[in-house]
């Protein structure tokens, strides 16, 4: 099969001596850096660390569910394990995943700037992230927390005896980290674009991250105050959510989901941005309906704020409110459908190659479509009654978050790996990993849809024996999935030293980031570019190449 990759002659090619990695040496030069690319690397390393902690917890969950009895762990331990799995994966992996690594690395370069608007705040956000993450781990080691990641009152305020306040504080701190990241992105995209870089010349990755950043900035503080009130209720006993004092526990749910529903868009939107870039590059074609895809990101962000109460359909909100929130939920499903079809038609009359990032992107499209469509099952208030709080919902959000977001993340990591490190990953091995991940994923989570249909409740340490067959399938799949996730870590580290030299533009992509050396210089551009070409302008790229050839020739 032919490929799109164009590498320099390996006998003579070298990774440029001058780049952001070699600029300075020593640990302090990393820990005190203001360089968005170095901060992205810091994030990448720490995110991977937290991902594998969350993954280990997931493995424990799946092992426990291998048998109907709670025999591997007591239900108490199991509760702590799934709570920490949720908290680590959501607050310390999914929310920051693409924005904090790829976004940090690429957004300034994509808009043609030397750095994000506020480098120090960017660094601060990493420190906050680490502080939050380590605090959460500390809470886990010193007794854990068993409220579920949703901190539902009055369970979290009065009925558990675990480290709720510490974990809440960890989530609070991590929240500020994500606020600062979002704030930085918005200002950078508004204010730091290179001459000629108009809004409609921005790569879709920027649009998607911009939309996610808006959600981060406007949503996160609401969950912050909700957590503060929970902490105050636990420590000094104020009575805002306490039903015995006249408070309404549902109010906590309102405040919590006001952030936590948009949070799923914070998690998925940047992934959609990655997929737009990857599909365009490997189809060698402009994204079909660029502005529709761009605006659908914004639409998801805006509508995302109107739908939170669909998490509470059976929790005692008024039926009329359920009606309204259900209708609005249907509306937010449409932009996602638009994106899927636009990506599909980007392939039409393209010139498609199937490198690893593209395989992951295909995986994303398939799994996200399933995840999105099953989301409609839960957004329709009637079917929600049967399916909510069961394994159906677990399967649904894992299809979106793991099948969607993690696929997109891996796609993006592979796609920009040559840019970040100057070296290629091993292609065949990584294609294998992509396929293994896809198969393992479906094995793990598809049975959970059936379990949910049958009514198996989530967060159960033990379950009726008739559900065992499907649970065994799921656990077996999880072990395949584990291999799929471990492989990239190994070969990506290997490639740091032994990978082929990538050159500036191995994929022959059009983004500004591909027109500079890899790895980039600390200041990104020797001279701020003046953007004349259109976005995803492959003809312009061809002309550039011809121009270079005639120049050299």
């Amino acid at each position, binding site marked *: 099969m032919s490929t799109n990759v164009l590498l320099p002659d390996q006998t003579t090619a070298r990774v440029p001596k001058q780049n952001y990695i070699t600029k300075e040496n020593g640990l302090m030069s990393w820990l005190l850096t203001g360089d968005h690319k170095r901060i992205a690397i810091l994030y990448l390393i720490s995110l991977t660390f937290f991902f594998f902690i969350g993954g280990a917890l997931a493995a424990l969950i799946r092992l426990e569910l291998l048998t109907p009895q709670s025999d591997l762990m007591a239900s108490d331990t199991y509760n702590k394990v799934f709570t920490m799995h949720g908290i680590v994966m959501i607050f310390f992996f999914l929310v920051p995943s693409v924005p904090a690594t790829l976004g940090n690395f690429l957004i300034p370069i994509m808009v043609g700037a030397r750095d994000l608007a506020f480098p120090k705040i960017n660094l601060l956000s990493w420190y906050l992230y680490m502080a939050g993450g380590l605090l959460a781990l500390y809470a886990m080691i010193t007794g854990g927390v068993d409220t579920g990641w949703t901190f539902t009152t009055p369970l979290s305020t009065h009925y558990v005896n675990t480290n709720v306040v510490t974990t809440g504080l960890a989530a609070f701190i991590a929240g500020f980290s994500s606020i600062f990241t979002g704030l930085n992105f918005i200002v950078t995209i508004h204010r730091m674009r290179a001459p000629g870089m108009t809004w409609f010349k921005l790569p879709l990755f920027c649009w998607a991250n911009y939309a996610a950043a808006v959600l981060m900035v406007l949503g996160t503080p609401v969950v912050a105050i909700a957590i503060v009130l929970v902490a105050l209720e636990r420590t000094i006993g104020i009575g805002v959510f306490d039903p015995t004092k006249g408070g309404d526990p549902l109010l906590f749910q*309102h405040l919590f989901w006001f952030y936590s529903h948009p949070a799923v868009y914070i998690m998925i939107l940047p992934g959609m941005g990655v997929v737009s870039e990857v599909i365009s590059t490997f189809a060698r074609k402009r994204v079909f309906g660029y502005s529709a895809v761009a605006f659908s990101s914004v639409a998801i962000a805006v509508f995302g704020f109107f739908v939170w*109460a669909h998490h509470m359909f059976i929790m005692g909100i008024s*039926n009329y409110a359920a009606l*309204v929130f259900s209708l609005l939920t249907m509306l937010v499903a449409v932009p996602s459908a638009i994106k899927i079809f636009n990506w599909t038609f980007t392939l039409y009359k393209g010139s498609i190659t199937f490198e690893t990032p593209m395989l992951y992107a295909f995986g994303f499209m398939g799994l996200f479509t399933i995840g999105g469509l099953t989301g409609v099952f839960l957004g329709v208030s009637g079917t929600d009654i049967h399916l909510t709080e069961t394994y159906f919902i677990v399967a649904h959000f894992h299809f979106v978050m793991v099948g969607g977001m993690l696929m997109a993340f891996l796609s993006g990591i592979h796609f920009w790996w040559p840019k970040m490190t100057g070296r290629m990953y091993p292609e065949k091995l990584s294609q294998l990993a992509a396929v293994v991940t896809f198969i393992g994923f479906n094995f793990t989570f598809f049975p959970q849809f059936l379990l949910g249909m049958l009514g198996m409740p989530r967060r159960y340490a033990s379950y009726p024996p008739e559900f065992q067959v499907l649970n065994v399938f799921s656990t077996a799949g999880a072990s395949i999935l584990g291999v799929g996730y471990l492989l990239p870590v190994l070969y990506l580290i290997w490639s740091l030293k032994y990978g082929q030299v990538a050159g500036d533009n191995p994929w022959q992509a059009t983004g500004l980031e591909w027109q500079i050396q890899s790895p980039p210089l600390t200041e990104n551009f020797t001279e701020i570019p003046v953007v004349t070409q259109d976005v995803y302008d492959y003809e312009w790229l061809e002309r550039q190449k011809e121009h270079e050839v005639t120049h050299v020739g």
Partner: protein
Amino acid sequence: MSETHATHEAHEEHIVSPKVYALIFLALLVGTAITVGASYIDMGPWNPVIALAIAVTKATLVVLYFMHVKYSSKLMKLTVLSGVFTFLILVGMSLSDYISRAWGQW
């Protein structure tokens, strides 16, 4: 080129004179006095409405003059408005549940 020119104008340091500040300060003082005064008059359901209307007016004055939004770019104005908008979504959509709970047996 006109675009460039427009942005340059936005960057022109607009220094608000102390006179304007003093005027706004006075208005805020008067506003406070009216709020307190109005709270002693029985206007039924209009009391909180009046109090909030005055508070909104005072806040708007602070935002426009003390915080220079009146002299800032369109982007800043939109930013402030989007913040207020999201705030209203939070309050309004939450209250929609609480208000409609009282309608029926649900």
